[in-house]
């Protein structure tokens, strides 16, 4: 079973320079940067656009905060299937008789964009952790039901993880090297058992929650204040987006 590792380049309790900004500001900046980066199509603009994500990735290190190499490796592994396919399946002139030149270029651009967007999102959003993200989403108007669902899911994932792991270990001990159809059947039974046990627990939890005041008893938004430096950070990201849009349109005109 894959291990649960909440790693976004920050040790537990670590403080990064970005932590001094309002979580809402970090979410807004992440959206602006994603919009700016998602529309980039040429190498020169991507090279210029790399400055800000690189600064976020490498400059904000210290006091327990480190470069999230593991997280960056994870995003590249997840995207590898598609960008490895591109040189073989993309139309256009062939290199070595198999690889498409346009496909290679596209794979490079896609991998580059993937890393830039991931660097920004990992530093600005993921490193905040689930509670601060849901808190910020609440302050931006996301419904309480959804935030509650996220928080409860986090709680139950870690609660049920031990149970799921021990059940799967028991299956593996009874049938070493289990595979094929029998593995599917065992997985189905493990998931079914987990569902049945968690259903009982869910009923008890729902009852306990309703006694505490139901959904309304769940709200725990912290009192954060939007400071001038938050507006400054948003302005920097807006300027970044405007510069990239101008560069992209001039690159299109030149082409």
């Amino acid at each position, binding site marked *: *079973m*894959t291990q*649960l*590792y*909440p790693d*976004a380049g920050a040790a537990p309790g670590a403080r990064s320079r970005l932590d001094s900004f309002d979580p809402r500001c970090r979410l807004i900046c992440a959206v602006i940067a*994603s919009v700016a*980066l*998602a*529309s980039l199509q040429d190498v020169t603009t991507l090279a210029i656009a790399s400055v800000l994500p690189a600064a976020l990735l490498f400059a904000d290190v210290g006091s327990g905060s480190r470069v999230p190499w593991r997280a960056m490796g*994870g*995003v590249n592994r*997840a*995207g590898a299937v*598609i960008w490895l*396919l*591109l040189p073989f*399946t*993309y*139309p*256009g002139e062939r290199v070595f008789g198999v690889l498409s030149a346009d496909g290679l270029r*596209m794979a490079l651009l896609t*991998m580059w*964009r*993937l*890393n*830039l*967007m*991931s660097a920004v*999102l*990992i530093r600005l*959003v*993921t490193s905040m952790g689930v509670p601060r*993200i849901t808190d910020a989403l609440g302050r931006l108007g996301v419904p309480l*039901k*959804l935030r509650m*669902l996220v928080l*409860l*899911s986090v709680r*139950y*994932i870690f*609660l049920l*993880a031990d149970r*799921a792991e021990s059940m799967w270990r028991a299956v593996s001990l009874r049938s070493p090297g*289990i*595979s*094929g159809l029998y*593995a*599917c059947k065992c*997985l*189905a*039974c493990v*998931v*079914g058992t*987990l569902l*049945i046990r968690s259903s009982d627990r*869910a009923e008890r939890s*729902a009852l306990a929650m*309703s006694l505490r005041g139901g*959904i309304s008893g769940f709200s725990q938004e912290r009192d954060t204040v939007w400071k001038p430096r938050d507006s400054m950070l948003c302005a920097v990201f807006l300027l970044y987006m405007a510069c990239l849009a101008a560069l992209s349109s001039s690159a299109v005109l030149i082409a």
Partner: protein
Amino acid sequence: MHISEGFLTLPSLAVGWAAAAAGVSVGLKRIDPDGIVKVAMASSVFFLASLINVRIPPASTHLSLIGPIGLLLGWSVFPAIFTALLLQAVLFQFGGLAVLGVNTSTMAASALCAHLLFGRAVRGRSAALSAAASFAAGAMAVVMGAALVGIWLAASDPKMLASAYAIFIAHIPLAVIEGIAALFMTSFLRRSYPDILNAAGLR
């Protein structure tokens, strides 16, 4: 079945977010306050199940189980899958946050279709029909998900159509495996705790 950051253009990302927002808001409206805990539990169970590595010679795979989660949750599958994908992105950097809308709409729409097309037959009296419908739901959800991934990629760049076909074909053996897993799971639930398939809070 995840699309990573960087592959889709801005309009595709925007359409994906709009579709996911619409689905999530409908799903949230259908969850009663007591049902939130059940949906969270179901979402957590499927999240954990997707982490278990199953050996299917000659390879090994992590099953997505989107067909069974759709059969169980109905419209609530939109917020449940949104939550699971958000947590996958935050805890594992799997998928991504900008593409969260596209991935949610792809997987949740497939799961919801499985529920709408086969849910009644799965809960029906005939065990044989239920087994067949469970297999069809599990397999169809994966096939539809792979087709939607292909559509998103081709909509972003029509030259990615061949990649989209390759991804679709690669998912066909996985669809058979997921169908078998769905069949085993629903037959286990029908034997052990049939009420869970009819849970009012999970529609």
